[in-house]
């Protein structure tokens, strides 16, 4: 009875936690109808998405956040920020959205270091010429000759160029005098070679998606493009702050699109809902809570606490699962397509493994499954959060990679292999810490933890072997080379080899429980290197997953795991649990 009540409370808490923020703020009829505006379609980076997604991604690229604070401290949503900015409202120039953290870059732009490192376009404006010169010189160099300053300058300049291009793509050329039209048209044609948002969907007579400025320009002489005209009217109304005419134009635009091309609205409101749910970060917080609760429950053998944590883990797992399925549905690709999605998938699978451990070992797990699922789920979702800064995480795939079959088989299997190795390694870390620092690791617990590690290592070997071979078959199928010693292939091979070594060392009696735990922790290093380290080499056919700051965190992670390995090798008599064994 008590258990049921606790579980009910946990579930209710989780539901309340997840629903917050899903509902848009109330809008009166006389306000700007931003919610409806957020649902309008736009094609950017090759994918149709709602303006809501576009605004969030764009803002994330510039500032690493999905909302912005105005000068008077109010929180402004990404959509409102975008509308204010592209319509040219005066205060938009003062939104501090450009994140610049490098001090040398800041001083060369004549800016002071400040908390949160965010600057407005108006602050950057006086020194844009300088930035451009520095960026051009950095671009002129070969990659190896670029120093940190060059790389940081390029990073900032890329943000500025992206910002300027996107601003220009929302220009209204109606005010441009006749004699400059030719030059403007040429400028727009050049601009269309860059990645710019195409906001005007295909409609009657126009089979393609087009950016706003070109659609408005082409209507100059010929008959007006009604869709583009309404969109321009929306922006004009926003600029002057006339909510009624904005809403009026918005409705006309929506109604027109609805009659001309109703299919364009498909999936849009679902995607807005997905964005607002923000399931991954919320699940991450809950997983952390699961971990903390289970840690106490496990250390002090509090069965009730462990039970509550288990329920909470399942409650966080359900939206996590939903969000992965939703991503697949929205993007049309299998769950893992890039580093970001591999992180959320590996986290998901690790939590699933935690749940399976809890079921497989029943009472004897004593919450070990929660511990593993909680920390792995939290860590991977946090990693995913930091990886999301590159823009749309549901990007379209390059031609080589665009084979859903291989993405669905090879990538999923190999991710499961990573996951199982990490789960085993995480148990190894708990084994070493609890043995060294506490008396919790008695004979039975050690035996159980060993069996969990052994079981997951078997599956890690199975998945990583099959995944690696499938990767080879993909390569054979794409360019006729089953095994090319490409860095990413080698990374996967290292995981297979390491898992094989662990099992053979065990079969040969070379290691016992503790040795196996130490090896499992070393498996974390191997896996982390092959997941992120290989990309740092930026060699070979897999180098699409390149990220910059990851290499620092990878070093940190590898060093900590190395320390744990050394701790695991401390003689057993110095372990606090040593005496009880």
């Amino acid at each position, binding site marked *: 009875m008590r258990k049921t009540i606790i579980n009910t409370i946990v579930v209710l808490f989780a539901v309340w936690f997840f629903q917050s923020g899903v509902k848009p703020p109330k809008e009166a009829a006389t306000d700007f109808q931003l919610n409806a505006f957020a649902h309008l379609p736009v094609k950017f980076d090759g994918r149709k998405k709602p303006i809501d997604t576009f605004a969030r991604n764009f803002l994330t690229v510039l500032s690493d956040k999905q909302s912005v604070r105005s000068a008077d401290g109010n929180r402004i949503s990404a959509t409102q920020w975008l509308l204010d900015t592209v319509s040219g409202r005066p205060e938009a120039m003062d939104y501090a959205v450009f994140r610049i953290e490098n001090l040398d870059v800041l001083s060369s732009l004549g800016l002071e270091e400040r908390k949160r490192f965010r600057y407005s376009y108006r602050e950057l404006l006086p020194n844009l010429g300088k930035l451009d010169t520095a960026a051009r010189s950095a671009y002129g160099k070969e990659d190896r000759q670029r120093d940190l300053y060059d790389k940081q300058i390029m990073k900032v300049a890329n943000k500025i160029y992206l910002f300027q291009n996107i601003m220009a793509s929302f220009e209204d050329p109606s005010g441009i005098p006749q004699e400059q039209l030719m030059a403007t048209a040429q400028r727009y044609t050049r601009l269309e070679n860059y990645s710019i948002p195409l906001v005007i969907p295909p409609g009657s007579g126009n089979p393609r998606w087009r950016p706003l400025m070109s659609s408005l320009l082409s209507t100059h002489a010929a008959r007006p493009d009604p869709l583009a005209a309404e969109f321009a009217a929306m922006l004009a109304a926003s600029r002057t702050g006339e909510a009624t005419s904005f809403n009026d134009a918005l409705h006309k635009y929506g109604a027109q699109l609805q009659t001309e091309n109703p299919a364009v609205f498909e999936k849009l409101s679902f995607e807005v809902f997905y964005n607002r749910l923000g399931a991954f970060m919320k699940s991450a917080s809950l997983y952390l809570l699961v971990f903390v609760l289970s840690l106490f429950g496990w250390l002090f053998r509090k069965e009730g606490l462990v039970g509550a944590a288990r329920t909470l883990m399942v409650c966080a797992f359900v939206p996590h699962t939903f969000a992965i399925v939703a991503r697949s549905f929205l993007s049309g690709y299998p769950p893992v397509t890039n580093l970001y999605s591999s992180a959320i998938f590996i986290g998901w699978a690790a939590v699933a493994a935690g749940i399976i451990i809890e079921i497989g*070992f029943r009472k004897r797990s004593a919450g070990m499954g929660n511990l593993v699922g909680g920390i792995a789920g939290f860590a991977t979702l946090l990693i995913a959060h930091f990886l999301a800064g590159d823009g749309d995480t549901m990007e379209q795939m390059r031609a080589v990679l665009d084979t859903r079959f291989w993405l669905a088989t090879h990538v999923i299997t190999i991710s499961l292999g990573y996951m199982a190795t990490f789960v085993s390694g995480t148990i190894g870390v708990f084994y070493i810490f609890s043995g060294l620092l506490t008396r919790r690791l008695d004979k039975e617990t050690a035996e159980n933890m060993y069996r969990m590690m052994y079981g997951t290592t078997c599956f890690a070997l199975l998945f990583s072997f099959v995944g690696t071979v499938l990767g080879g078959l993909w390569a054979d199928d794409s360019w006729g080379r089953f095994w090319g010693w490409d860095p990413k292939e080698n990374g996967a091979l290292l995981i297979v080899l390491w898992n094989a070594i662990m099992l053979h060392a065990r079969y*040969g009696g070379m290691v016992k429980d503790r040795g196996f735990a130490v090896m499992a922790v070393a498996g974390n290093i191997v896996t982390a290197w092959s997941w992120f380290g290989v990309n740092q080499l930026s060699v070979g056919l897999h180098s699409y997953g390149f990220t910059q700051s990851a290499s620092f965190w990878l070093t940190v992670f590898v060093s900590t795991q190395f320390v744990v390995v050394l701790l695991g090798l401390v003689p057993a008599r110095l372990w606090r649990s040593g005496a009880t064994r």
Partner: protein
Amino acid sequence: MKKIIDFFRSLKLTVVLLCLSMVLVFAGTLAQVDKGIWTVMDQYFRCLIAWIDLHVFFPRSMDIPDVRIPFPGGFLIGWLLVINLITVHWASFKVQVSGGRKVAGIVFLLLGVLVTAGVMFGWGTASVAATESDAFWRVFLRLGRGTLAAVVFYIACLLLYRKRAGMVLLHGGILFLLIGEFATALFAVEATMTIKEGETVSYIDHSRQLELSFTDTSNPDFDTVTVVPGDALKDGALIKPDGLPFDIKVNRYMVNSNNPQPLQGISESLRSRYPQYEGHGARLYVTEQPEASGASGTRNAPAVDVELFNRATGDSLGRYILSLWFYPNFVNRSWDMPTNITVGDKDYTVYFRFRREYVTSPSGNPYSIKLLDFVHEKYEGTQMPKDFASQILLINEGDQVERELRIWMNNPLRYARRTFYQSGYLPDDSGTVLQVVRNDSWMIPYLSCMIVFVGMAAQFVQSLSRHLRREG
């Protein structure tokens, strides 16, 4: 003798060998920051003794002495693992059944071999195989065939080895995979075929072999081609090819050379040391470059500095620099720069080029490929490629084959024991570059993958169910 057997049947040896291979793979991966993939492969993996450069383990900014450490190479480790695997199994996994069961086991074993051979040699598959549907079914079908072989083998193992069937099967699969990869390393050949739209091509360029070709164009009815294989072009060598009225002295063989630059734009100090060449070298600057690394994404462009001597008189016919950069297929047909030489009454067109092979089907008849159309699709509003596809016409008059086919990303054409993959394209999408691979052991990974999978899964499911029974 017993000691040797004991050494080889120990699991400790397995663990040591696997650890050594991890070190080797790790070093071979890091080495690719500086070196090209083929160099790394020869230096680390496809050799008995590997020479590991010490500096690969350190950041490139640190000044590490240029030391090379000898280490067991890929082939050595591979063969030792094979011996180790076989001895361990021979010693520890004895066939413990007899009578009818043993006979049945052997029958299934032979059946498995038969199925495997059938799958490998493609019994029952079309001679011209291009995909018209999704990659999905084709690969599933292949994995399905592999599963068929694996299941037959598993039944054999189950009959012969009872509980240890999975163990035996999975290691058998590993053995098969190792042997397959060894065969690939020795026998697989990679080449390319470059075709402009509307053009018909009947030869391939071998990516890893070069040759010096002399085409005698004096006769209006036919050309006479004489080639000097790239292996003969050693520094200081004097080559006397049959059928040519001159000798070739090799001054310098360059593993990599620069993209030729106009000589006027080169600084005076460099120009003063530049040899006096005839031909393109008289107005272009070509010089030796460090080897291209896997990180830069560029390829080596070898060049050779030669001097020709009239065989009859012994007079010099001039010194020439012949670079792969002058060969049109290397630069994706951006230009064509033959070197022309006149000796007596004969005109020669000279190229330093990839080894050229005219393709034939197994029946010995030549065939050719015509590019009808090349399609390069991008995602709307981006420069990101969405699809590359070559619409081709495969013509083999001797075998009466004339078929229009499509080769696109992940969907190659398999014909006459070669596989044609969409690999690149010419400037302005005016043509295609196909990767042409001949690898007769290409089905082995499909088979061994499924064999290992079935064996491993059977073994783990067995231990899992034992565990769950114990849990109650």
